[in-house]
């Protein structure tokens, strides 16, 4: 389990992370979402032991990460800006990874190579952006570590490769019990990938939750009655939002879906429909509850 406690990280005068706390459980896919400059990459680098926080601590299973090879052996990091040795190919990079990661698996490396259909002898500088990211993913997954940190990992991948990478990450989590931490500025990217999501804004996590729980606990209800009514009719239901156009109203409801359905059906509506929410919609409402304007937190997403 990754535990970040009250972390503050500064770069000169600017504060990248400010008193951040988070717990990332084992065996899950943990998504970090936020706009540019929110602190996602910084948090990932702190978890990887690249940066040392000015305040607070980062630990894995209680052991500090920074300058601790025993813990870092269990982590592999795929950064947003990839690094390969100059004028080299994947086989040479395999040697580099194998020299420092004890559990690096050549068999796994060869399997992944064939999965991605990359030429291991080709010079990496001739690879496209997406192919380079595939290469980095192959190398990282071959390290057989307990924690895999991906920074903007789907950036540059085509939809087919994106799905392939997602499946590989699932397999890592399902088969080996690995933990994957993925950052993205796109909520849609992480929607169908992550078990848990955290939203970073201005150096802190402002919202963190289980994705399945988010999706099932928050839903949209469209309902109409033959008589005149207002929001007070739904007093027994936790509604985050209520809008009414004519006799039809829409509610964003938090709670047990069956229970809510039963309650509303008991009111004899002339129209009743339960609609699933997209993750983005869930975030909009949840953050609205917390006093944040979603469009400000994930500017690019909205724009």
């Amino acid at each position: 389990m990754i535990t970040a406690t009250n972390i503050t990280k500064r770069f000169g005068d600017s504060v990248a992370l400010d008193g951040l706390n988070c717990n990332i459980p084992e065996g899950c896919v943990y998504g970090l979402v936020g706009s540019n400059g929110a602190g996602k990459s910084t948090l990932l680098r702190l978890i990887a032991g690249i940066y040392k926080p000015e305040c607070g601590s980062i630990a894995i299973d209680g052991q500090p990460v920074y300058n601790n090879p025993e813990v870092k052996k269990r982590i592999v990091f795929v950064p947003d800006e990839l690094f390969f040795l100059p004028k080299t190919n994947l086989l040479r990079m395999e040697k580099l990874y194998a020299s420092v990661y004890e559990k690096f698996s050549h068999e796994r490396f060869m399997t992944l190579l064939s999965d991605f259909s990359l030429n291991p002898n080709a010079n990496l500088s001739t690879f496209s952006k997406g192919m380079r990211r595939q290469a980095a993913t192959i190398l990282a997954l071959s390290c057989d570590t307990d924690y895999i940190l991906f920074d903007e990992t789907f950036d540059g991948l085509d939809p087919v490769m994106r799905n392939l990478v997602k499946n590989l990450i699932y397999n890592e989590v399902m088969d080996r019990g690995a933990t994957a931490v993925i950052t993205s500025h796109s909520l849609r990217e992480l929607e169908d990938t992550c078990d848990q999501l955290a939203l970073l804004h201005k150096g802190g996590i402002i919202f963190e939750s289980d994705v399945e729980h988010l999706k099932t606990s928050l839903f949209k209800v469209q309902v109409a009655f033959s008589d005149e009514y207002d929001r007070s009719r739904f007093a027994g239901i936790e509604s985050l939002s209520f809008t009414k156009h004519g006799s039809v109203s829409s509610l964003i409801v938090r709670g047990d879906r069956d229970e809510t359905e039963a309650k509303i059906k008991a009111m004899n509506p002339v129209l009743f429909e339960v609609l699933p929410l997209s993750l983005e919609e869930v975030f909009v409402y949840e953050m609205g509850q917390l006093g944040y304007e979603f469009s400000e937190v994930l500017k690019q997403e909205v724009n």
Partner: protein
Amino acid sequence: MKRLIHKGFFREMVRQLRTKGLVSVFILAGINLITFASFVTRDPLRDSFTHVSASEMAAPMLFFLYIMLPIMVFGAYRWMNKRAQSDFYHAIPLTRTQLYGSTSAAILLWIVIALVSFAGFRAILYAAFDLPFNYLLYLCVFLNMLIAAVEILAAFSIGSALTGTKFVAFFSGLVVLFLPRAALSAFWIMVEIDSAFAVPFSALPFFMNPAFNIAATPIHSIVYRADFANVPAMLYSLLYACALLVLGGLAFHKRRSEAAEIPYASRLLQTTVGVCFGLLPLAGLTVLLNVRYRYGYSSYSVPYELLTPLAVTSVLFSFAFFCLYELISSRKMKAVARAMKFYPACLVIAAFLLFVPAWIGTRRAQPKVTAGEIRSYRINNESTLTVPYGRNGDDSYAKLVLSQHSFTDETGKRLIEDFSKTESLDRDFLSLTAGSVTVNAGGLFRKVIHVPDKWYGEDVSNLWRLYEACLSDPSLIEELYAFPGGCVWYECSGLLPEEANEVGRIFAEEYNALSLSQRKALQKGGIPGMFKESDRISTRATGLSIKLYSCKGTTNYEATYLINDLTPKAAEKYLSILNARNGERSRKALKAFVKWMETGRESDTPDALWIGSFSIDDWTAWHYDDRELFDTPKDASPKLYRILKVLSDAPLSADVNNCITVSARDYHIRYYDFIFPAGFEIPKDCREDVLRWIREGEWWDEDRVPAATEDDWDVDPDVP
């Protein structure tokens, strides 16, 4: 060890540095190939060999280290200057110490491979060509170079660890490498310059002696007799290098990944390096001003009229250096403007450099010593004893013996006591160091005293009394004239190395059978007034000598001995080889010379001629200075003509008691061709003239026509 070096990463870094490492090996192999080519193409008869010097081996190695180590360090640590690369290397499961240790070890491994291959191949080369070679000294040179490698590596590693761009890292490395030595050297020059009791160069070895802090030694100091076999110096350099290496580790440990691409880890460091650069022009000015104002006019000081423009120029240059460094390193004009407030630090430090050493220098107490406190003393400088320097900087055998001999005589002790009383404030000692003695005053001090020219020039009798006292030591004389043992290489003019070795073996046997006084007659160079015997007729008639090269421990030395009638077998062997090889050519040259005397210059006339030890190559010059211009040389110098004429028909001879050697030099269009000597039997009918010629040491001819007057030059020889 695991904490310092990670095996896998070490192997990886060795792989990454493979190209640079192999290039290093090839560069040094190239130097060896040039040496090999010069050996192969040399003429063993004409290109004499010398003892392979330490500097000959050290200079290319140190030069290589200066070039290749920064390239390797910046190649290995290039990831520290790029954010993405820095993140990658900081993410891998190694401690920063392991990253640093493994990288340093990999760099050192390649350097060691390059140096070992260079040194090994070179040693084989010297052995294959049977050159005089001191393997123990070579090992010391090699160890010194390894220490230098560690030091340079550490300096540039510190530079890399403290900075985030190559440019700043390189200059920071230079500052780490050279600034401490340069500052201390400048400081001691200014402090010590008026100390008569000690010359800084050797009295303050930690700072001035090129053997110490070997990596920061300028190449020219390496070439000029750096003491590679000085064990304390090696230990000092090693400790210093290790300290720098540890400092590099600490700097690396403290370094953060996010420092990549940022020129400097801190404002303080950036300012420090900038101030160092700004100080460069001012430091020179400081030394000049210090010397000028404290000592008035001397050969070391600049004229008054130049001081003001020099000072203004230095300050301007200093400011320019400071700003330029800031601009290049930060690439921002704003940063230059911000940094300017720190520039006055350069001026403050320069002022400190100007006044503090002067203040300390005037307060330094000069050591005094009494005769009773002196346990022993040694003579270090051979020049006062007219013992010639060996070629290529090697010591002569006599100097080696002298420097290792401790004197305990009371006369000498009293003279040194007198010296310490009267000469402590002499300021002219730098102008000429006439000699030096090392005083061992037990628990008081052990110090080298450089005898200044004042003592030598104004009261020379004291110096002579000191040497007379020394030379009255019979054990010294016995040692001086013993034949050197151990591994010896011989060199004889005109002989191949194997022939010289054969002559040398015969000579050694004969020399060892001689009495002390006879040996004195054979050793060339040494104590003045000890060589009366070298006037022997056979020495002058043949001019034969043998030079030997050998070593005692790590010290190379050479010695030259005469071969004459005291060593007849060696002389006979030598002459018979020469006669067989050069006899007919020498005779031909002699006949051509005689013919020239008869009829005038022709194309085959030798350019110069030697009869025995005497050159008559300038004979033609003085011959034409007088009215003999209008006569043939034969008529102008009839006696010389007769001797040469008879000699040209005399049989060859290897009998040292009855022969004279003839050698010649032919000038061709672009080169001189030396005709090595051959021995000719001294003709009976002009024996007396020849012997007189040899005895008196210069040509004479009673029959010569009187010298011409100025009026004679107006006479046109073609007009009857």
